[in-house]
């Protein structure tokens, strides 16, 4: 089996590499861990039970606030071990999740999404007004206290704490999907009527799944609160709910590790290029829509698809079209990035000032480390050509890949072929 080896390798990397990274990257990795756990917890609901929540920020935020309240008590001398602080988030997430879930799961489909949305918006609207519980608009703030000689002052210590909690949580989530009850939730997604006829209480089952999902979201929120040592009402914002949806679906909600992949890639990427471009959110939206259109199962789904047919993949035939497809994708992406960055320069205020100084003319502008003339056809032909060629290459590659896969799907498996040969030999 390759999978356990792979997981072990990833764990060794996660445990061994961070001490050698700079502080900023360490902190980015903490965020990757938190986002991964949050996405997995969210996906328990949508991937397993088929319930699309648009307000998971509520449980993330509840976890964060609960932990922060406990941290404040600890700061005042209450002897609670610092590494166990996320238990507060887990407990509150579970309770609030059970209550919210009880109501939300009375509805399904779009209506369920709307109920979760309304609950999160309620928290978001109420929190900045509720001084005592949520610290008003400024929020609550505290400090991680030392415990058993560990100061929990450095980012690295926070990282290992988060890593431990995330790994344990993921193991629990994984184990959950293996239990008979976890299987039941899957059945719920696929055919609720049938589950009901088999004598199970569908509503109770959904409430439990919802509560468990909220509990792990609460743990993710706790880790965020411990990392930032502050929590305010912005944790409940629709932006937080939106991000987790994005992560889960780009990563692939039908695969267990898919959301983790999406969260890790997006969070890390956002960190790495956020000082390069101001249009990161636009790219993120574009990636999401493209994935929805062309790879509805997400990155994880694509990977899983390949893994499932691994035995039958003939890479000598696939490599060519795949390379071609990547080239096309890179060309189209380059065109989109060029266009976006060019427009963001041209429509930005400094350029308007430059134009005014130039007496209304269109002065050249700087982008990608060189100067460009906005009136030169070359400036606009470049992205156009990139886009055209890229699109052409992409369609060609797509057709070739489609044909290859057709062949792979229709070919008998090696085992079946061997069995057929054996039966022929026997007769």
């Amino acid at each position: 089996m390759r999978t356990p080896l792979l997981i072990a390798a990833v764990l060794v990397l996660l445990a061994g590499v961070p001490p050698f990274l700079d502080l900023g990257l360490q902190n980015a990795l903490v965020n990757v861990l938190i986002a991964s756990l949050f996405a997995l917890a969210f996906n328990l609901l949508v991937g397993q039970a088929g319930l699309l929540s648009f307000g998971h920020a509520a449980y993330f935020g509840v976890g964060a606030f609960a932990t922060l309240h406990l941290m404040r008590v600890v700061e005042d001398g209450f002897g609670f071990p610092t590494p166990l602080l996320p238990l507060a988030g887990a407990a509150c997430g579970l309770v609030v999740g059970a209550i919210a879930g009880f109501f939300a799961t009375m509805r399904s489909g779009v209506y369920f999404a709307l109920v979760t949305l309304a609950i999160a918006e309620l928290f978001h609207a109420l929190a900045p007004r509720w001084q005592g519980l949520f610290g008003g608009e400024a929020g609550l703030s505290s400090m991680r206290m030392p415990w058993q000689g560990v100061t929990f002052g450095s980012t690295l210590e926070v990282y290992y704490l988060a890593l431990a909690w995330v790994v344990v949580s993921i193991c629990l989530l994984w184990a959950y999907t293996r239990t008979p009850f976890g299987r039941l939730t899957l059945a719920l997604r696929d055919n609720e009527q049938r589950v009901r006829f088999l004598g199970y209480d569908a509503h109770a089952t959904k409430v439990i799944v919802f509560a468990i999902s909220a509990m792990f979201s609460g743990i993710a929120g706790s880790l965020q609160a411990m990392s930032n040592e502050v929590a305010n009402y912005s944790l409940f914002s629709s932006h937080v709910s939106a991000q987790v949806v994005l992560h889960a679906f780009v990563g692939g909600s039908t695969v267990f590790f898919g959301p983790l992949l999406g969260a890790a890639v997006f969070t890390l990427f956002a960190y790495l290029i956020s000082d390069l471009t101001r249009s990161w959110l636009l790219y993120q939206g574009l990636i999401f829509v493209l994935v929805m259109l062309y790879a509805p199962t997400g990155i994880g789904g694509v990977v899983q698809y390949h893994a499932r047919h691994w035995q039958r993949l003939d890479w000598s035939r696939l490599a060519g079209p795949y390379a071609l497809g990547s080239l096309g994708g890179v060309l189209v992406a380059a065109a989109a990035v060029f266009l976006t960055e060019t427009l963001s320069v041209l429509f930005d205020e400094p350029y308007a000032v430059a134009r005014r100084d130039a007496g209304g003319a269109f002065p050249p502008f700087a982008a990608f480390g060189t100067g460009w003339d906005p009136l030169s056809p070359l400036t606009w032909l470049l992205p156009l050509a990139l886009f055209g060629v890229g699109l052409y290459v992409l369609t060609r590659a797509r057709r070739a890949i489609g044909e290859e896969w057709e062949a792979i799907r229709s070919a008998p498996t090696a085992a079946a072929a061997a069995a057929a040969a054996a039966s022929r030999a026997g007769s």
Partner: protein
Amino acid sequence: MEFIIISTLNGVIYGLLLFMVSAGLTLIFGMMGILNFAHASFYMLGAYVGYTLAALVDFWVGLIVAPLLVGAVGILVERYMLRRVHAFGHAHELLLTFGLALIFEELIKLFFGDFPVNYRMPDELQFAAFTVFGTDYPFYRLFIGAVAVIMFVALFVLLARTRIGIVVRAAERLPRMAESLGHNIPLVFMGVFGVGAALAGLAGAVAGAYFPTNPNMALELGVIVFVVVVVGGLGSLKGSLVASLMIGLFSSFSIGLDWSLASLLGLVGLGDWAESVGGLFTMTLSSVSGTIPFLLMLVILLVRPAGLMGDRN
């Protein structure tokens, strides 16, 4: 008295604006079952198209072109995107429109910046319609209301009295049957989506000149529009009119009312206790008025998911 009359007027006008935006949304949901997260983005697009054309050409040109252009965008979205993911189910369609909303917002920021743009009504519309209790009432507010009323009447007549309306309603009730009778159902869907988007675009072009036009307007209005559509009953035009007016009136009146749970409990002698507890009890209605629509939506969804006037199905 003065406060009541002015607040009623304001509430009705704001409600009518909400209706303009939510009409398209509820039509689309009623027919296609798609909860269009990008609908408020169409409203925003309309406002920005109106702003651009008002600056380049003329306000009235913008008013005519904006719905056409936004409607065209809507048609493209339906034809080339939604139809593609239709097979994966409603959740997928919802996610797609959600992604589109993100893209529209960022595109607007890319071209127009993050600050509100100065989109104003033309001078010939900038006068007081009448004066009540020494307060001028701007004509443009009535103009917004009038556009909404005309829209409602036109939509109602179109759906209830014309042949097109019959086909559309048939496609909503029994799409298979309508299709076997020879009607082009995908075309009907595309048309409805386009019209819904165009209505939002018109609302944007009209209201954007009065209310702020900024990249957050879609987000700000979007959630409220959902509330309207849910409360009115997903798919019911009349319901969303009633719900729009309700929410408009409510947000207009709640501002003047300094009620809190504590003052309510004060009526039964528990006021002091509530004051001492604080928290939820002492928040005044005007300061938490933002939460009431969500509360209303929650209650409706849980008690009567079909909304005030929607069909139970």
